[in-house]
């Protein structure tokens, strides 16, 4: 019962913070199936290419993946002949500055902003990606589910070496 906002509408700040931490933890532990199961069936994982990008359909995105494409990415990350995953990517996420930005109690939906850093080590060495998360979460009987995870990298329009894991 701490943090901003009234828990009267059912959205408890601590629960949301715990959920975001759990999500990041699953990625860092490479528990990709469990991570993917945090999404609603129609849930999308979106990494826009442009700053303030309005939509994922009428513009290129670094990633715009539904359940199918996320699962294919996961299948590949596990494949023995994923050459660029030798050695496997190892990551550490930090999530902070978690703010509940919009509340829609009637729909059981809440929009949560946060900041993140992800350090990744793989064949070419260590790199850091940083940016802002926007989680569109829905609250149902068994807790929160992700309707959309938006990842705005601060260098989204910059030059990248390949990005393989989920940010």
């Amino acid at each position, binding site marked *: 019962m701490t943090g901003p906002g009234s828990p009267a509408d059912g959205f408890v700040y601590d629960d949301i913070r715990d959920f975001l931490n759990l999500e990041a933890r699953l990625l860092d532990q490479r528990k990709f199936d469990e991570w993917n199961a945090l999404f609603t069936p129609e849930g999308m994982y979106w990494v826009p290419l442009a700053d303030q990008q309005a939509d994922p359909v009428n513009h290129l995105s670094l990633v715009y993946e539904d359940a199918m494409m996320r699962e294919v990415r996961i299948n*590949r990350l596990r494949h023995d002949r994923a*050459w660029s995953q030798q050695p496997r990517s190892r990551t550490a996420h930090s999530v902070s500055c978690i703010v509940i930005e919009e509340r829609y109690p009637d729909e059981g939906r809440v929009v949560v902003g946060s900041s993140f850093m992800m350090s990744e080590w793989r064949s070419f060495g260590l790199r850091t990606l940083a940016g802002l998360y926007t989680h569109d979460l829905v609250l149902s009987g068994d807790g929160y589910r992700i309707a959309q995870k938006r990842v705005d990298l601060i260098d989204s329009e910059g030059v990248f070496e390949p*990005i393989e894991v989920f940010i």
Partner: protein
Amino acid sequence: MTQATLPLIDIDALVRDDEVHRDCYVSNEVFDLEMERIFGQAWVYVGHDSQIPDAGDYWTTLIGRESVVMTRDKQGEVHVLYNRCPHKGARIAPEGCGHVKGLFRCPYHAWTFNMDGQLRGVPYREGYEGTSFDIEDPRFSMRKVGRVANYRGFVFASLAEEGVSFESFIAGVKSSLDNFCDRAPNGTVSVAGGVFRVMQRSNWKVFFENLNDTGHPIATHESSYRAARQYSNEKLGGEMPFQLHIIDGNGAPPKFWSDLDLHAFDYGHSYMTAIFKAPDDPLSQAYFQSLAEAKGEETAKEILSVNRHNTIIYPSCSPHTSFQQWRVIRPISPDRTLVEIFTFRLDGAPEELLQRTFIYSNVVNSPSSIVMTDDVHVYAECQKGLETQGGDWVSQHRNAGQDQPYEGADGGVIGVGSSELPIRNQFRAWHQYMSDAARPADGDTGS
């Protein structure tokens, strides 16, 4: 970086008919010479004029090591200028795409320039009286590159004032540029959706060699096409939606690849016939209708029957005509290459077609592509291996000596899909650009 020990750069000693020396990829001296003799001579892709639709618009990029800026003036004309202030040398246009109100203004001492580079104004004018400074003297204006060609919106430039004409240079693959635009009901295309930028830890030529290489997909891309097939089998009863279909294609058996045609032309250009058949779904039908309404049914069919995978316009770009992608290759150093990927709208086509183009590009050309990542990894492994003393020669033997003159429309040379013809062809052009005595002249590359 370890380099082999050729005493001086002896270009003839680096290139054989069916293999090339590793110094071509790892030597700093060879790279320096490439900047001078290839990127200082050849027609290099600068950008598309839809990136600078209005007077005062600009787009900055690289030709070899030269920072250049493509501009549009009040008369609608496109210019390509060195991005350098004639006063103290500061770059004048910031990186990327932008707009100025009619004049460039140097951020350092506020000298101003017309969009064609001509000096317009200099503060503290009185201080120049009695000096040799002359506002009319071209050396106090932004310098233009040697030559500029704009073919259906695609802007190429050569730093050299003299040399092969653009018409001769592009002749072999002109049909790909035409097809790229003819697919649009309005006959024009425009850049849309942003730019992907990928850094490769490998030599620029490694990427060019890969663009028409049909030998690698089944090995390099095994993880992605297996991943797609696994999902299709487990979840969709073997069905392949568009995105999975694109990824799955790389797992086609060897016969599929050798049955394709490879066409090679002067100056290192080539193209490959298509991997994917044009889809036949409601969107494709709506698109066909829009094309048929604009051009007539017969012409529309003819345009779409030209179905190609990557075209190579050596040494700077590679259009994919049937999915409206355009890759630009910028050498940074012997072991770093920047690839920029543009996506185009077919003007007059249904907007959903552009959306499908974005989907294709998200899957195949994004820095997050699960396909491309294995390519980029393997290129870097090539670079690291070539830096060792484990061998001096790189093989290009596959189907060497079997290429035949092609009697069809574009001429050139044809080889089976599994041939290393495009690679040998690139090095023939490379050899000619790099040899002092035999710079390519019109009709003189003999591929």
